């Protein structure tokens, strides 16, 4: 098997990727669910049938023009740690990480397409883009799907559309989502009403690393819930509109905070910097929350000589599996907290104190 770590874009490079509005929209993603006619869904199929489906789909996906030189592997060939790293990169779901024989992954060189085989559906194909590029992601995945439908016999019904294992994905099988960094709305306590109004539009807001509204690192994921009865374009456009509005609210919240409560903002960011730059033991949760404030500080110009990419890289490298990968011994959670703190201190040693005039 190809070496996953030689294939994956390094955290430093990944953090350098830029996209429109990336100070607020960290990434955009469109996922399509598809299944083959005449085969049981992965959750119900016996192992031989899952293996047969994988052997049909994997070569079909790998042979697509956009997937040349891709990484294609069966899930049983990954170590638990590598699967966890793929989860931390948001390339596969936790559910997929739990799969083994009969499930697979095809990831292209640019990491702009990631296809999960035999997750909940036979096919979960996703297009990923940095920043606010929902429409581009849809166009890309639409094209990939159209190329793939020539090679595979999809389960499709004129009335119900694409048939999926769970009725919640029926019809278009589409899930459009954007990952948003919203510290301004959280600090100004506007996040809950925003989430409620977004929910009313039939969209879901999830904390990326935890349930509830206090998302870890102030990162939220907005996505559509309904998939039947509306076209892909309508769904994509609605999400685009809503995200554009959230961006505006976040920008306004930051501006108002700086104007009305500069001390509160400087206090939060200064303390975050103080802890990150000086701690000798720090949990991944605390790291995420403080890095979020540091990122806000960079956005607000408090760290004039620091790039946002440094913070984004730390968002990734301080996660448990990424951290574990960098040292050879198996670490306990306590040991990880020590190594994490060492790493963060080292990376921040050239970052000067926040400039608050």
């Amino acid at each position, binding site marked *: 098997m190809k070496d996953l770590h030689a294939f994956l874009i390094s955290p430093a490079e990944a953090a350098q990727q830029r996209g429109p509005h990336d100070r607020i929209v960290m990434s955009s993603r469109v996922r399509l669910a598809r299944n083959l006619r005449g085969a049981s869904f992965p959750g119900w199929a016996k192992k031989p049938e899952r293996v047969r489906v994988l052997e049909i789909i994997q070569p079909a996906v790998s042979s697509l023009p956009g997937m040349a030189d891709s990484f294609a592997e069966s899930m049983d060939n990954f170590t638990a740690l590598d699967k966890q790293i793929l*989860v931390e990169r948001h390339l596969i779901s*936790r559910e997929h990480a739990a799969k083994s024989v009969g499930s697979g992954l095809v990831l292209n060189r640019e990491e702009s397409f990631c296809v999960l085989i035999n997750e909940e559906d036979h096919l979960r194909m996703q297009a990923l883009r940095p920043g606010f590029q929902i429409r581009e992601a849809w166009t890309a995945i639409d094209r990939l799907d159209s190329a793939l439908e020539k090679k595979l016999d999809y389960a499709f019904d*004129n*009335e119900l559309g694409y048939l999926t294992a769970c*009725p*919640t994905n029926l019809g278009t099988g589409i899930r459009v989502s954007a990952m948003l960094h919203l510290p301004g709305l959280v600090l100004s306590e506007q996040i809950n009403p925003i989430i409620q109004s977004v929910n009313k539009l039939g969209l879901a807001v999830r904390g990326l690393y935890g349930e509830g509204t206090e998302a870890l690192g102030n990162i939220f994921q907005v996505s559509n819930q*309904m998939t*039947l009865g*509306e076209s*892909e374009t309508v769904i994509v456009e609605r999400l685009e509109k809503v995200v554009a509005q959230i961006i505006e609210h976040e920008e306004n919240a930051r501006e108002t905070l700086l104007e009305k409560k500069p001390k509160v903002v400087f206090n939060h960011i200064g303390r975050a910097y103080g802890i990150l730059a000086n701690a000798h033991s720090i949990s991944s949760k605390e790291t995420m929350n403080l890095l979020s404030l540091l990122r806000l500080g960079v956005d607000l110009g408090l760290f004039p000589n620091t790039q946002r990419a440094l913070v984004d890289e730390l968002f990734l490298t301080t996660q448990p599996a990424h951290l574990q990968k960098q040292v050879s011994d198996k670490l306990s959670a306590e040991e990880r907290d020590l190594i994490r703190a060492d790493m963060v201190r080292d990376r921040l040693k050239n970052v000067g104190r926040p400039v608050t005039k």
Partner: protein
Amino acid sequence: MLCCVCKEKPATVHLTQIVGEKMQKLDLCEECAKAKGINDPTSFAMADLMLGLGASQELDPSAAGAELKCPRCGFSQADFKKSGRLGCPECYRTFAEGLAGLLKTMHKDTRHVGKAPEALRQSRDNVDRLKALQKKLAKAIETEDFETAAQLRDEIKAASSAISVKATK
């Protein structure tokens, strides 16, 4: 308190969600919670869970008999109740009656609009076109516009042969 999914084991995982003024509570045993991915914060989504659970509760067993099984894959209503997922694409036909109400609560509508595989899209478009032409023809005959009617008849002939060619391919 018993688990609201399996109704067998004691509930040890309790979830509460407040949407607007409505409060929804779930009490699950450890196994069912695990099966629904609740011990796993990144994939956990209350909404999905509610829909999934709602699904199992709302699939009306009287609609088609509790013992209904999918002839292709052997999946039963009880299996759906457990997992909230179906067994195979054919299940949508098998359990159509029970699913109809559920789909209404989950989605905007119960009829798919949007993308379809190219081959099907063409035949669907042709059928739509044929229907439209036939309507026009009826109207032309009604208004005794025989010139248009003759023209429409030729178009219908062409359109329907296109469909039968597709069908025999």
